[in-house]
């Protein structure tokens, strides 16, 4: 039984599946990490993901007249645009109206859940498959035995998600914008004294976060080629949790997303091969969540959250 699992081809397939699984989590969690570094918690990731997913699906479903690539680009850009709009709404709520951030996010989530379901039922109805993104094998790297199959044979959004990890690390640690993000997330008052426009920086971080959440939704659609009500099924909330898992560092977030993806894909593979079945199959479904907790206990990092997280900035306060 178990020997069926420990064959090269199965293990390679499982690892490649883990990389795919992790992608939407990673994109959404990276965005959330940027937002949280600036001091803004967004529990509405799930809602934004759904809106991005529906938009990408809906645009893709209707022919654009600009060819395959043009249609694909339009779909992804449309998802990004919707993400930015939701970012503006969230910025208005949290930066202008100083709304409680935890509850605001739940409002965004409920709205996204209901609105996409409604639009789907009314505008689409039958969940017709779309022509999503196909894997592209990267020349040379893709030819490395096994490694090529695991890492270098994915669709372009998967590559983008992983490329964003060093990019965002550099942005947060090395650019002025990144330094400002950290400054307004830790000590907004001090940053303000130094002439940093706190809310503008936070707006930028919120927009990045929402755009990436919408992109995560689009990535999900382009991988499954389908939309359905509640497509994300809780992924957005797990993405928020992975930010904490990764201690607000893009590298850590990636580790968390990959761990979650790996456990999910392993469980799936074990079930597919009939190694676990029946009641055990139900029990293994809790493995990804359980292992995430266990690993965090073991590697428990003593890194505190951004000190101004969830605290609105009011110059006159």
């Amino acid at each position: 039984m178990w020997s069926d699992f420990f064959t090269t081809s199965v293990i390679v397939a499982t690892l490649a599946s883990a990389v795919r699984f992790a992608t939407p989590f990673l994109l959404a969690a990276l965005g959330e990490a940027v937002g949280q570094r600036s001091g803004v918690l967004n529990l509405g990731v799930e809602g934004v993901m759904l809106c991005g997913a529906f938009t990408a699906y809906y645009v893709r479903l209707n022919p654009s007249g600009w060819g395959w690539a043009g249609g694909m680009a339009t779909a992804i850009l449309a998802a990004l645009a919707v993400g930015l709009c939701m970012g503006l709404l969230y910025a208005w709520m949290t930066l202008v109206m100083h709304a409680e951030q935890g509850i605001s996010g739940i409002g965004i989530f409920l709205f996204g859940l209901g609105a996409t379901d409604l639009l789907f039922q009314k505008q689409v109805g039958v969940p017709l498959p779309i022509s999503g993104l196909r894997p592209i094998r990267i020349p040379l790297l893709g030819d490395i035995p096994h490694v090529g199959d695991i890492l270098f044979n994915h669709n372009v959004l998967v590559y983008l998600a992983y490329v964003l990890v060093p990019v965002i690390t550099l942005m947060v640690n090395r650019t002025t914008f990144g330094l400002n993000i950290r400054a307004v997330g830790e000590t907004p008052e001090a940053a303000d004294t130094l002439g940093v426009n706190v809310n503008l920086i936070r707006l930028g971080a919120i927009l990045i976060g929402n755009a990436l959440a919408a992109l995560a939704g689009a990535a999900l659609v382009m991988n499954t080629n389908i939309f359905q009500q509640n497509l994300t099924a809780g992924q957005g909330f797990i993405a928020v949790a992975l930010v904490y898992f990764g201690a607000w560092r893009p590298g850590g977030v990636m580790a968390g997303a990959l761990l979650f993806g790996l456990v999910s894909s392993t469980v799936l593979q074990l079930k597919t091969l009939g190694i676990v079945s029946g009641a055990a199959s139900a029990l293994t479904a809790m493995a990804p969540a359980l292992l995430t907790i266990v690993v965090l206990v073991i590697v428990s990092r003593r890194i505190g959250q951004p000190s101004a997280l969830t605290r609105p900035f009011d110059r006159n306060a």
Partner: protein
Amino acid sequence: MKRNPIGVLLALIAALALLASACGSDDGADSADEVDSGDTAESTSAESSASAGPLRVGIVAPSASNDLAFTQSIVDAVNAVAGDRELDIAVTDGTFIVEDAAAAIRGYAADGVDLVIAHGSQYGGPLQEIAPDFPDTAFAWGTAVDTFGLPNVAAYTVRADQGGYVNGTLAAQLSESGVLGVVGPIEVGDAKLYVDGFVAGAKAQDPNVTVNVNYIESFSDVALASEAATAHIQNGADVLTGTAQMVVGATGVAGPAGALWFGTQSNQTPLGPDFVVASQVYHWEVVLSEMMAEIDAGTFGGEVYTLTLENGGLVIEFNDGAGADSSVIDGAQATIDGIIDGSITTSDG
């Protein structure tokens, strides 16, 4: 931290009270507009009875009425019956919360609806408590086989294993790799019946065929269904099937990967016009017509109606667009006939 919560709440109460009174005084406008089903004008009074005017039907179902699966099968069926006789249809869909469904069931009954269809196995619990309060209302519950000994409850169910068996025999013949993949939700209800029937059919056709069954433990996780299908394909499966709402995730990747698909519940050809070979379609209208005839005759209740291949409630619909070997497809009729005449047993039960 300087908010006065009491003030907020008083304001909220005032706001809602104000709105309630504003709306309350605002009668007229009898608009109950058209909906999905098209002809659902709802009369405001409960004057209608089974004999006078169209039969009033209320459907309560757990997912969206156009889900191309379980909920759509009943909505389509009621609309099909409405082609033969005048019906006044109302639908409450998306009530996956059982207590909300209970409220909706009670609401339809209290509103004078003649036939309330509780379309979900999980609605039996509340139905058992509600039905005795409305002895003049007919309640239909499915998929289920229990009427709780109540005179105004009928149950309806489906031998999903029959179509599963037919699909299984076809899948085993069409597979070149000898590996079949099943994406299931949770091992319960008619999902289990269908999957067990599929496995039995495939094995009966070809004892050497491998059927990998993966219950993903969710009715809704499309992404997981999608990865499960990918895992099946990577393990050599070239013919897949699955049941419940989340299978759209599996069909989304099955076709592009070159695999064939067998559907159930509704006709799933739209999900993959070039790779869905056949679908087992539920035609609840067969049992609904029977139920309504019983209501007309005043003899409704206590019965369990079952969709089978024999009574036409189950139909295997083929899709030529998938380009499957036509001799194999032609052979399916023999299997169907065998199941109908009892020479083939599709399950232990």
